[in-house]
């Protein structure tokens, strides 16, 4: 699991909105540029972005290991054909390159995850998405982050209690139903108490947000994001 780690890298000093822009630009460029030259350039850029957040490429690949199975299976499935010639190398190669480009997108986002505090992301959400939806999303992310370990413990407690009562020998849908029902009742009990606590503390539409500001290192990051997005637009829109 790769999460935020306090550090003083270039990526840590960037505004979360710049990092969001770079990720969007990179994803758009990686999913549209299919030539080997472009993939080579994107690989170099991805390694550079990981270095800027002090994440080793190996560590980033390990963090993305859950995606690797499907990404490695897809080219094999694309290559196999029903009937002669049985193996279509071109189709397999095309999908293999597509899988590689998806992997690059996943690696680049680990750099942002490692270098961005959730409270800064929350402020970025509230400043980027206008009005009440942005406010609710921002507060929601902060509360979700706070309650995630609590509910994980709840789910583990439920599973331990089920195991102690031979619940693991029940049918799969009964087990899933029991975890879901008990998990939801516990979560909603917590929600009732949290709702009361928020109202008691004057939960408002206009709170004071943590400060965020663009600084000098954000200029090249934003330029990079704009370049990547422009390169995508030039590829997809025929002039």
């Amino acid at each position, binding site marked *: 699991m790769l999460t935020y780690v306090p550090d003083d890298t270039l990526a840590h000093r960037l505004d979360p909105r710049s990092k969001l822009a770079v990720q969007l630009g990179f994803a758009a460029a990686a999913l549209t540029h299919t030539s080997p030259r472009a993939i080579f350039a994107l690989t170099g850029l991805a390694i550079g972005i990981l270095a800027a957040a002090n994440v080793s490429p190996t560590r980033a690949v390990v963090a993305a290991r859950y995606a690797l199975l499907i990404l490695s299976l897809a080219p094999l499935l694309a290559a196999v054909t029903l009937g002669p010639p049985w193996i279509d190398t071109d189709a397999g190669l095309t999908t293999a390159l597509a899988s590689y480009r*998806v992997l690059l997108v996943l690696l680049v986002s680990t750099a942002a995850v490692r270098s961005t505090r959730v409270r800064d992301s929350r402020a970025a959400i509230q400043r980027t998405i206008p009005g009440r939806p942005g406010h609710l999303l921002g507060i929601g992310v902060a509360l979700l982050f706070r309650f995630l370990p609590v509910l994980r413990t709840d789910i583990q407690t439920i599973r331990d209690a089920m195991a102690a009562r031979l619940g693991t020998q029940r049918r799969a849908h009964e087990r899933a139903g029991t975890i879901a029902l008990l998990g939801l009742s516990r979560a*909603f009990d917590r929600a009732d108490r949290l709702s009361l606590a928020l109202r008691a503390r004057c939960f408002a539409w*206009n709170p004071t947000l943590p400060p965020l500001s663009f600084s000098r290192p954000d200029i090249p990051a934003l330029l990079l994001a704009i370049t990547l997005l422009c390169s995508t637009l030039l590829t997809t829109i025929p002039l």
Partner: protein
Amino acid sequence: METDQRGVELVDDAVVHRFVHAVLLATLLGAVAPVAIPLPFSPAPITLQVLFVFLAGLVLGPVWGAFSMVLYLTAGAVGVPVFAGFNAGLGVLFGQSGGYLWSYPFAAALIGLFVHRGTDRRDPANASLPVVVTALVAATILIYGMGSAYMSLILELNAWEAITVGALPFIPGELLKIAAAIAIVRSGRLSPNRVR
């Protein structure tokens, strides 16, 4: 730090209540994401996430159910480890499984609209069984349709290859989850009075 000097604009009590329930349901979706039961001959394990997408639509209704799912995706995108395998990051939303994740808000809204017949919430235990089953099956088709279509687009697979790798292995697990969701709704233990 610059303090907001305007008067405090309190959030309505009913909104606070529904909002907090939507947040906790999104959190629960993240909490069960690492619970994965491996399936033989399948590239991806069964997770309980889709069951909670069903419950979001059934219990919270179309508006707050969809909000809960959008919140889950936003939290994952900004780095809270809520996606399968403790993953996070915007890249996951654009990765090979992105289509499934993007479909969650639509699936929750679809179930909510079917079962609650509009944006006013009713007790899902009172909805007729065929309506609940139709809603859950339609939502499952939507989730796997969007998931496979996106996978086929992004990995340059043809439709059948994408369905083979991205939908077929999950059908037995999904049937179990639909059965579990129906049992939960029929138990009557999730009355919407809790989420006024």
